[in-house]
């Protein structure tokens, strides 16, 4: 706006410079009497100039306008759409004839549903909070209640439609977005709403774009971004419980598997040990048998040559080996019959009188 005034002042100064000699009263604080006198004197060309200047002052400021890089200007002549102007300095007929509306076509706008980005300085937002929570509260296809907050980002793709085809585009955008999101969520179960947000966002974007196109809003949906979907607060704990139960289930299974893994491979090893031990026993048994048999056969071969002598020799040799090892030895006359019960078996040293021969311990 500033430059408008600057321009105005500039013109004023220019004019005053030009007409300072001619006494032309461009009006800063014009004296009424003087003015009247001038009209009485009526110098025609001067009067025309006054009119022209007034005209320029009135309309001149609206002759040109700047369009920023991220926008375009839509020019209407007598209300009728005339042309679109590109960024830069542009000219038009003055106000009353042509009107320009600037539309930011490159900017991406954002609408939030079901939550508010906290900005911190405005108290009025608190009053909106409840109404806006309502936007997120919706029914799912299995008639549960879900909280689904989301963001729509959009651009103005067709300034003509955007400006002229629809009144209150933002309202319609919000309404359509809500209706679309509820249609999409209404066809999904609560599980899907919570776990498949991406899918919902894609579907909703497609449907919304079709609706907006049909309504000729001139809006292009850049993206729909789902925030964290949830269930209402009173129900949340029970939903968490399900998740916990799933974890618990897996944990129980893992624990059982751990027990299994702890026992079974060890048992397999133990089984192999048992079998190997049996095999070892078998080898030992057979080998011993073979050895014993071989020894016996050899001995028998010798024995067979001189049976009697060899037998005696074996006997006596064995006795010679065995007797020294024995702790106590008693020799009893074959005629004594009742002696045995009186023997002190607990190793008393006293030789019994009836014993003939020596009781030698080693």
């Amino acid at each position: 706006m500033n430059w408008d005034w600057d321009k105005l002042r500039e013109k004023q100064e220019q004019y005053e410079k030009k007409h300072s000699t001619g006494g032309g009263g461009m009006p800063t604080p014009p004296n009424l009497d003087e003015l009247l006198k001038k009209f009485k004197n009526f110098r025609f060309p001067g009067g025309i100039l006054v009119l022209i200047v007034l005209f320029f002052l009135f309309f001149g400021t609206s002759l040109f306008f700047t369009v920023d890089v991220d926008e375009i200007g839509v020019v209407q002549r007598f209300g009728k759409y005339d042309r679109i102007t590109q960024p830069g300095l542009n000219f038009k007929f003055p106000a009353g004839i042509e009107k320009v509306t600037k539309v930011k076509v490159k900017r991406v706008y954002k609408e939030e549903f079901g939550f508010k980005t906290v900005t911190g300085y405005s108290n009025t937002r608190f009053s909106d909070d409840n109404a806006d929570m309502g936007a997120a509260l919706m029914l799912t296809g299995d008639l549960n209640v879900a909280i689904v907050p989301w963001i729509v980002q959009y651009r103005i793709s067709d300034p003509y439609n955007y400006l002229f085809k629809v009144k209150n585009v933002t309202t319609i955008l919000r309404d359509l977005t809500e209706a679309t999101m509820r249609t999409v969520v209404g066809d999904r179960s609560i599980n899907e709403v919570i776990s498949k947000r991406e899918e919902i966002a894609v579907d909703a974007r497609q449907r919304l774009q079709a609706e907006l196109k049909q309504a000729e809003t001139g809006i292009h949906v850049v993206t729909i971004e789902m925030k964290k979907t949830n269930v209402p607060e009173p129900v949340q704990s029970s939903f968490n419980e399900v998740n916990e139960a799933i974890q618990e289930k897996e944990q129980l299974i893992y624990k059982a598997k751990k027990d299994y893994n702890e026992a079974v491979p060890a048992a397999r090893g133990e089984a192999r040990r048992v079998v190997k031990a049996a095999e070892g026993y078998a080898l030992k048994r057979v080998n011993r048998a073979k050895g014993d048999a071989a020894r016996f056969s050899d001995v028998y071969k010798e024995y067979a040559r001189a049976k009697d002598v060899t037998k005696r020799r074996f006997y006596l040799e064995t006795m010679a080996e065995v007797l020294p090892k024995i702790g106590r030895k008693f020799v009893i006359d074959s005629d004594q019959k009742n002696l045995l019960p009186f023997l002190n078996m607990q190793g008393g040293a006293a030789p019994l009188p009836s014993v003939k021969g020596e009781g030698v311990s080693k």
Partner: protein
Amino acid sequence: MKRYQGIIIGVVVLAAFVLFNSAYIVDETEQVVITQFGKVIRTPVTTPGLNFRVPFIQRANYFPKNLLAWDGDPGQVPTKDKTYIWVDIFARWKIVDPVKYFQTVGDMVSGLSRLDDIIDSSMRNKVTSYRLVESVRNSDRPMDTFKSTEAEGGEKQSQYRIDVGRSKITQMIMAQAQPKVSKFGIELVDIKLKRINYVATVRKAVYGRMIAERKQIAEKYRSEGRGEASNIRGDKEKELNSIQSNAYKTAQEIQGQADAQATSIYAASYGVDPDFYSFFKTLEVYKETMDKESTLVLSTDSDFMRFLKGIEK
């Protein structure tokens, strides 16, 4: 000359005033009905641009030509299955016959209130005649719901099956409302259900149901976990028993075979002279069994001691 100057200025000013009063601008978003002393004359001006009328006598009445929004007040409606819900509906409409609109309605505020009455009543009409799920769902898209029991699964899905669906219901609302608004020169472009929510008391009950449902699902998972764990433990026990008994069996077989083989070897070898075997083996056993702790009582009758009593017997 000077006398006429005042007159000329007067005429110019007057002409400008008249011109200003007779010209009017129609915007892209507007349409205009020209009235003369309150009576509509000429066809309405719908093309935007600069237009003229007879000043002072004729009046230009502006009406919007673009798409307009109507947002209903949320209302409590019972559905066919007796659930009370809040329904928030909105519509988009256009003034297609500005003359009719001008004659029957007049301004925008009363236009919206006419729509209020008409759309609201047809919405109630339709929403009440269908089950809640018909207004919520749009298609019979299969949903991923938890099955609380195997048998219940199919029944649950059919509980949410719909015959009509959301968009058909809104179409019906529109079909019912359209003839009623046509006489006002209004065309309904679209009606949509914006929000459907349970009323507070129903919501509480629904929350209760949701909680119960989840609890039951949670219980199912837990029990599944326990069941599966027991199954695995059973597997473990079976496997252990199988492994151990198989090992025992194999071991016994191996040992038995070895015993048999050994026996046959012994038999083949010792069978040559059993008497000598018993003699020979007995001697060996003596060697092994006698020790310091043993006490031996020998009779002089024995082979070993008989010479103690004399050489000859």
